[in-house]
């Protein structure tokens, strides 16, 4: 294996590792934050030698083992092949998206300059949308292949919902593209390292506040979570499109839900909150406003950047889980009205305003 291939593989594996770690933390938040909000104690039963770790053992060790050891049932009337493929079709696109999310600037090792991004794709932002649009198939096929009315209803709701919100999501991203003039997520993250008025980091939310709100709402809807969990809505459809799933396949559907939550958090971080940027941290160390500097070696800078990225992603994962446990579920017509009559016109207006401002700024300059 040549060094280049090894480096590329290591980068992709690290991005995947980061995503899955934050996902595990997300599951932990889900159990414990919900308990906190509902004034319960939450998961605390499982323990290793009396160590429960605030419920970490329960959510990160006991739950996965339980899922993997449960009987894997395929209903007699189900379409066996598609029933088997649907969970994979749900999880793989969500995980693949992390390939283009940058998690650091550059690492200089032994004369090599390594760009800390899994795949350096010039159309990274469109790749994100492409993978998001492929994620629908897991939901639709899972719903259909189970041969169950509730599952089918969940699958149909899921496909309509995800297509509707993808439009608003894509249009919100056009504002971001207009601002940064590139589709490469690493370039977008780098552009956010500049300072406004010499002290304010030029993060995306300064330029595109409306796009941030639209993207976050559409992102929560894409990950099919409360208040947008119509495809599974336990109170009416048992468990929606994955009613007929058990064991490891059910775990895969749950994992893809949480991976999508982390993905939305990672994209919000990269597009609107500076990605891996630490305020005032350049490639050679800190440059504070006012002239003070603090030199740092490349490795320390990278560690700080990756940590900052992970912390931001964890914060937005936590935010989405708080949203989930705070709001009630929409009715189906409310969901569609919000998507088509609320978010879509807003995102179109955002595109027009952004284009106008970019044009005026370019004329003025």
């Amino acid at each position, binding site marked *: 294996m040549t060094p280049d291939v090894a480096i590329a593989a290591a980068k992709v594996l690290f991005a995947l590792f980061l995503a899955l770690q934050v996902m595990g933390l997300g599951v932990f938040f889900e159990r414990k934050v919900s308990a906190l909000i509902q004034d319960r104690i939450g998961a605390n039963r499982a323990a290793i030698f009396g160590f429960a770790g605030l419920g970490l053992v329960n959510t990160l060790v006991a739950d996965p083992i339980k899922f993997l050891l449960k009987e894997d049932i395929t209903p007699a009337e189900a379409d066996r092949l598609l029933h088997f493929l649907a969970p994979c079709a749900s999880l793989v696109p969500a995980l693949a998206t992390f390939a283009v999310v940058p998690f650091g600037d550059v690492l200089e090792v032994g004369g090599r300059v390594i760009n800390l991004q899994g795949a350096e*794709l010039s*159309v990274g932002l*469109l790749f994100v949308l492409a993978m998001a*649009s492929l994620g629908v198939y897991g939901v639709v096929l899972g719903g*259909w292949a189970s041969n169950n009315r509730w599952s*089918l209803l969940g699958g*149909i709701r899921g496909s309509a919902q995800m297509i509707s919100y*993808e439009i608003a999501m894509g249009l919100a991203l056009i504002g971001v593209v207009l601002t940064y003039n590139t589709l490469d997520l690493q370039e977008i993250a780098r552009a956010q390292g500049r300072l406004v008025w010499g002290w304010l980091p030029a993060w995306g939310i300064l330029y595109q506040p409306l796009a941030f709100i639209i993207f976050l709402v559409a992102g929560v809807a894409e990950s099919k979570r409360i208040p947008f969990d119509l495809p599974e809505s336990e109170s009416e459809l048992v468990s929606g499109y994955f009613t007929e799933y058990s064991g490891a396949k059910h775990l895969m559907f749950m994992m893809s839900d949480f991976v999508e939550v982390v993905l939305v958090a990672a994209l919000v971080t990269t597009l609107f909150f500076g990605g891996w940027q630490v305020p005032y941290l350049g490639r050679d160390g800190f440059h504070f406003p006012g002239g003070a500097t603090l030199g740092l070696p490349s490795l320390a800078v990278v560690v700080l950047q990756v940590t900052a990225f992970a912390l931001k992603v964890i914060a937005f994962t936590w935010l989405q889980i708080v949203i989930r446990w705070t709001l009630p579920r929409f009715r189906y017509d409310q969901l569609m009205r919000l998507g088509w009559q609320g978010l879509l016109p807003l995102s179109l207006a955002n595109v027009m305003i952004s284009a106008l401002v970019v044009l005026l700024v370019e004329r003025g300059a």
Partner: protein
Amino acid sequence: MSALIFLLLAALVLAAALTVVVHPSPVYSACALVVTLFLLSVFFVALDAQLVAVLQVIVYAGAIVVLFLFVIMLLNLTQTEPRPTAGAPLVAVAVGGGVAVVALVATVLRRVAPPGTPVLPAGFGDTAALGRRLFTAYLLPFELTSVLLLVAIVGAVGLAKRRP
């Protein structure tokens, strides 16, 4: 792209495309169509056209075929369609399809550049180059396409609103 990978991908694309046509279940046909479109986008990547590849997945695999599946499921087309196995329709389709394939291959072969032609210009297939062509050389067709889409939308709304 090495010849081996090309042949492997080509075989997969052909198998998927054949499945679209011959599989009796409409849901499987739609799924095979997704696979076909996705593999086609791999060819686009190999041809340095990343933007076209990604657009292919977003528009066709990600949106249009989902709507196909949506309709198939909403109408609950679970029973398989009877297909003609012989007779005039099949012959007509076979002859027409054959002529179309021969014409297509002949046209493509005539336009293949002779060996030794210079490689692609810098920036070929990237978003900026494609956008510039689209809004200069091909502006009129581009705008006409949007009118075409508008006509389809107005037509769909008109049909849906009509009271019996």
